[in-house]
C-alpha cells in the first residue's frame, strides 16, 4: 500500500495552532499567577502568530493536500484571518470579566484555541468527513466553555440544552452525509460535485441527504425553526462565552456552508435554494418579532442574531458569486457588530453584577457619553441604518437578492428590518432618553476601553469606507 506524505505547507497554521494549544495547556499547569497573565498573553500571541502565518502563506492559487480533503484558497485565508482577529478581541474583552467571577483558568483559553482549530478545519474542508471533524471539535469545545461556570444553574442548563440539541443536529448532519456517501460513493466535495453534474441514478437519496445536511447547518446557525437553543444558551452562558459563540462560529458556519453548498452541492442548487428561502424568511420574521418582547439584553441579541442569520441565508441562497460575496461581507460585519454589542454588556458588568437586563443601559449617556455613543453606533448598525457598516451589509445582500430575481423576498426582508429596528431603538432610547438607575462607575481596564472604542469606531468608519472589505470579499470568491 502506498502512503505518500501529504504536503504540510498548506496546513501549517493548523499544525501551529494544535501545537500551541498544547503548549498553552502545559504552560498553564506550571504557571502560578492568579491572574493567568502568562497563559493569556501566550494565547493572544498564538492567535497573532497564526495570523502572521496565514497571511504570509497566502497566495491567490488554490492548494489541496491530505488527498484533496483539505483546501487552502483565498476564501479560507480571509475567513481564518478574521477568525483569529475576532477571537483575539473576544479574549481581550473577556479577561477581566472571567477574573471577577473566578473563571479565569488556563483551560478556558485552551478550549478557545481548540475551538479556533475546529473552525480553521471547517473552513478549509473539502471532504464531508473533515467538515464534521472540524464542526465537532468546535462544538465540543463550546459545550465545555458554556458549562465552564459549574456553580451556576443557568449555565449548566444552557450547556445541557446546547449539548443535547447540538448532538442531535450533528447526528442529522452525519446521517445526511452518510446518505450522500451511500448514493455517490465518495466523501470528497469535488467528486460529489462531478457526480451530481453527471446525474445520479438515485436522486431521492441525494435529496434526503441534502435535507438532513441543511437541517444540521440550520441548527448551527440558529435558523428558525431550529433556533430554540439559541436564546437559552446565549442567556445562560457567562457573557464572555456568549460573546465568543455569538461572533466567531458564525464566520466558520458561513465557511462550512460555502464548502458544502457552493463547492459540493452547487449542482443541487434549486433544491437547497427553496429550503434556504423558507429558513431565511422564517428567521427574519421570527427573530425580529420575538426580540421585541425581551427584557434581557442577551436574549434580545440572541433573537437579533437569528434575524441576522436569516439575512445571511438570503445572501447565500442566490447561488451567484454576488450573493456569496455579499454573504461573506455580511458575516464579517455581523461578527464585528456582535463583538461591540456583547462587549458593551461585559463593559457594564462588574464583580457580582451582570449588566444583562435592558434597564442596566438606562441613562448611559449621563454615565459615560462616549460608550453610549459606541453602543448607539452598534445598535444602528445592527438595524441597518446608514452611515454605519450594517447598512452596507444589508445593501449588498439585498442587491444580490434582487438581481437573482427575488424582488418580493427583498421587500419582505426590509419590512421586517423596520419592525426589528424598534428593539434597537429601544436601547438607544434607554441610553439617551432615560435617567440612570445604576450610578456605579464603569470598571474596565484601558485595554478593553481602547478596544471597545476602536470596535465602535470601526462600525462607523467601515460604514463610510466599506469599499476595501467589499472588494476583498468579492475577490476571494471569484473562483
Amino acid at each position, binding site marked *: 500500500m502506498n502512503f505518500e506524505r501529504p504536503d504540510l505547507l498548506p496546513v501549517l497554521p493548523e499544525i501551529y495552532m494544535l501545537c500551541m494549544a498544547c503548549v498553552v495547556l502545559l504552560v498553564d499547569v506550571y504557571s502560578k499567577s492568579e491572574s493567568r497573565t502568562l497563559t493569556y498573553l501566550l494565547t493572544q500571541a498564538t492567535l497573532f502568530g497564526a495570523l502572521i502565518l496565514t497571511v504570509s502563506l497566502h497566495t491567490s492559487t488554490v492548494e489541496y493536500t491530505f488527498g484533496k480533503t483539505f483546501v487552502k484558497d483565498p476564501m479560507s485565508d480571509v475567513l481564518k484571518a478574521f477568525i483569529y482577529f475576532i477571537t483575539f478581541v473576544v479574549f481581550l474583552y473577556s479577561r477581566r470579566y472571567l477574573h471577577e467571577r473566578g473563571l479565569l483558568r488556563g483551560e478556558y483559553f485552551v478550549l478557545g484555541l481548540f475551538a479556533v482549530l475546529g473552525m480553521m478545519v471547517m473552513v478549509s474542508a473539502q471532504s464531508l468527513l473533515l467538515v464534521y471533524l472540524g464542526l465537532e471539535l468546535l462544538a465540543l469545545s463550546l459545550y465545555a466553555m458554556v458549562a465552564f461556570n459549574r456553580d451556576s444553574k443557568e449555565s449548566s442548563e444552557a450547556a445541557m440544552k446546547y449539548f443535547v440539541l447540538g448532538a442531535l443536529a450533528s447526528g442529522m448532519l452525519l446521517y445526511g452525509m452518510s446518505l450522500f456517501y451511500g448514493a455517490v460513493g465518495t466523501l470528497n466535495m469535488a467528486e460529489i460535485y462531478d457526480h451530481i453534474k453527471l446525474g445520479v441514478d438515485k436522486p431521492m437519496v441525494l435529496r434526503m441527504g441534502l435535507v438532513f445536511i441543511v437541517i444540521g447547518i440550520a441548527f448551527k446557525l440558529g435558523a428558525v425553526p431550529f433556533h430554540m437553543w439559541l436564546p437559552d444558551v446565549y442567556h445562560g452562558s457567562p457573557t464572555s462565552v456568549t460573546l465568543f459563540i455569538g461572533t466567531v462560529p458564525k464566520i466558520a458556519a458561513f465557511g462550512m456552508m460555502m464548502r458544502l453548498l457552493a463547492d459540493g452541492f452547487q449542482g443541487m442548487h434549486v433544491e437547497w435554494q427553496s429550503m434556504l428561502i423558507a429558513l431565511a424568511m422564517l428567521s427574519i420574521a421570527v427573530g425580529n418579532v420575538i426580540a421585541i418582547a425581551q427584557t434581557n439584553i442577551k436574549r434580545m441579541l440572541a433573537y437579533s442574531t437569528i434575524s441576522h442569520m436569516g439575512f445571511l441565508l438570503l445572501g447565500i441562497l442566490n447561488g451567484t458569486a454576488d450573493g456569496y460575496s455579499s454573504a461573506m461581507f455580511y458575516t464579517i460585519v455581523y461578527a464585528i457588530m456582535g463583538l461591540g454589542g456583547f462587549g458593551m454588556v461585559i463593559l457594564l458588568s462588574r464583580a457580582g453584577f451582570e449588566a444583562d437586563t435592558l434597564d442596566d443601559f438606562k441613562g448611559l449617556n449621563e454615565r459615560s457619553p462616549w460608550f453610549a455613543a459606541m453602543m448607539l453606533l452598534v445598535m444602528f448598525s445592527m438595524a441597518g441604518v446608514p452611515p454605519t457598516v450594517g447598512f452596507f451589509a444589508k445593501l449588498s445582500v439585498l442587491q444580490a437578492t434582487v438581481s437573482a430575481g427575488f424582488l418580493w423576498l427583498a421587500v419582505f426582508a426590509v419590512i421586517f428590518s423596520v419592525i426589528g429596528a424598534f428593539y434597537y431603538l429601544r436601547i438607544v432610547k434607554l441610553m439617551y432618553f432615560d435617567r440612570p438607575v445604576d450610578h456605579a462607575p464603569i470598571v474596565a481596564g484601558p485595554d478593553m476601553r481602547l478596544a471597545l472604542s476602536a470596535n465602535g469606531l470601526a462600525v462607523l468608519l467601515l460604514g463610510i469606507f466599506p469599499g476595501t472589505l467589499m*472588494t476583498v470579499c468579492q475577490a476571494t470568491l471569484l473562483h
Partner: protein
Amino acid sequence: MSQSHLLSLVIWLPVFGGIAVLLAASRGDRVVRWLSLAVSVLVFLVSIPLYTGFDTTTSAMQFGELNEWITRFNVYYRLGVDGISMPLILLTTFTTVLVVIAGWEVIQFKVAQYMAAFLIMEGMMNGVFASLDAVLFYVFWEGMLIPMFLIIGIWGGVNRVYAAIKFFLYTFLGSVLLLVGLIYLYLKSNSFNILDFHALPLGMTAQVLLFLGFLLAFAVKVPMWPVHTWLPDAHVEAPTGGSVILAAIMLKMGAYGFARFILPITPDASHQLDWLIIVLSLIAVVYIALVALVQQDMKKLIAYSSISHMGFVTLGFFVVFNIYQNTHSIKGAAMGMEGALVQMISHGFVSGALFLCVGVLYDRMHSRQIDDYGGVINTMPWFGGLMVFFAMANVGLPGTSGFVGEFMVILATMKAGFWLAFLAGTTLILGAAYTLWMVKRVVFGEVANKHVAELTDLNRREWWVLGTLAICVLALGVYPAPLVDVMHASVDNLVQHVMQSKLE
C-alpha cells in the same frame, strides 16, 4: 479640470464642526454655544457663493464633484446642484444659524450634544440636496434620522419617546422601499448615478411599482395624508429648534424627492397616477385645514398648517400633466412647478418663524394651549406685531412670500381645471380661518390672566431671529425674482423631460 469643493465644504464643515463642538464640551457651555454659532455662520457664508456663482442659463448640474467611493457597486461620491436643490441648501444653512441662536438660553442639558446634533444634521441635509449618486443620497437621507431621533427624544416634551420612535419607524419604513427601488434601478442601468436613472427607459409595470415604492418614502416625509400622523406628534414634542428644522427643511426633502426621483424617473407612471397625488394633495389642503381649525395646541395647529401648505407643493408638481394636455405649452406647467418650489422656500421661512414665535411664548409661559393665552399684544407689542405678520404670511397675504407660491400654483391649476383650482383656492379661506382665529385668541383682546400680564417682550436674541425672518419673508414676497430666476432653467428642463414618455 479642477473640481469645485464648495459642496463638500457645505456638507463636511458642519459635520466636523459638530464633532469639534462635542470635543469642546468639557470647556463649558459658553464656549460650546459660541463655537456652534461660529460654525453655523461660517457654513452659511460658505454656501453663499453657491448662489452668487450660479449660472442661471443652464439646467445642468453645477459645482459638480466626482470621486470614487465603492467600486464594488459602481457607487461614486458624486455631488452637484441645479436650480431646484441650490435654494434648498441655502435655506438649510440659513435656518441652522437661526436654530443655534434660538436654542441659546433654553437648552441647559447637554448643550454640546444638542448643538452638535444640529450641526451634523445640517451637514447631512445638505448632503441629501447635493447628492447625485443614489447610495450617497440614501446614506444622507437615512443618516439624518439619527440626530433628529436624539433631538426629539432627549430635549423634547412630555411624550417625546412616543413621538421620536414613531417618527423614526414611520420614516424608516418608507425609506426602505425607496432602497429596494434604487437597487432595482441599479440592476437595470448598472449605475447608481441619479441622472442615469432619469434617462433610463422603463416598462409601465416597472414604472408603476417604482412610483408606488418611491411614493411611500416621499409621501411620509412631505407628509401627505394619510401617512402624516407622525408630524403633529413630532412637532409638538420636539424642542423649538427641532420643530423649526423639521418644518423648514425636512418636509422639503419629501417634495425634493418628488422632483428629483419620482417625476423624472417614472414620468409615465406619474402621468397615469397623477390623479392620486392630486386627490391626496387636495385632501391635505382642505381636510387637514379643517383639522387645524379645531386644534387647541398652537404647535399642533401650525403642524397641520404645514401639512396643508405642503399639499400645495405636491399639487403644483402634479398638475403639470393636465396643464400640458390643455395648453400644449410648458409655460403653464412650469409656472405650477415654480410656484410649488417657491412655496417650499417660503413655507420654510414662515413655518420656521411661527414655530419660533410659539417657542418665544412657551419659554415664558410653559404652555402651548391657546386657552392659556389672550391679549398678549398688551404686554408684548413687538412680538404681537411680528406674530401677526407671520400669520399673514401663512395665510398668503400679497406682499409676503406666502402669496407668491400660492398664487402661481392656483393660477397654473386654473389651466388644469376650474374645480381643481377652486378647491386649491379654498386654502386661502381656510388658511386665513385657522391662522387668524388662533392669532385673535392668543394675541388680541383683553389680557386673559395674570400670567399673561407678567410677560416680557422680546429680548435682543429673539429680535435677531424673528427680525431676520421677517425681512426674508417680506423681501421674497415683494421681489421674488432672485429666487424664481434661479429655478427657470432647471424647472423648464424638468417639465420637458417629464412630458416625454420613457416607455421601453
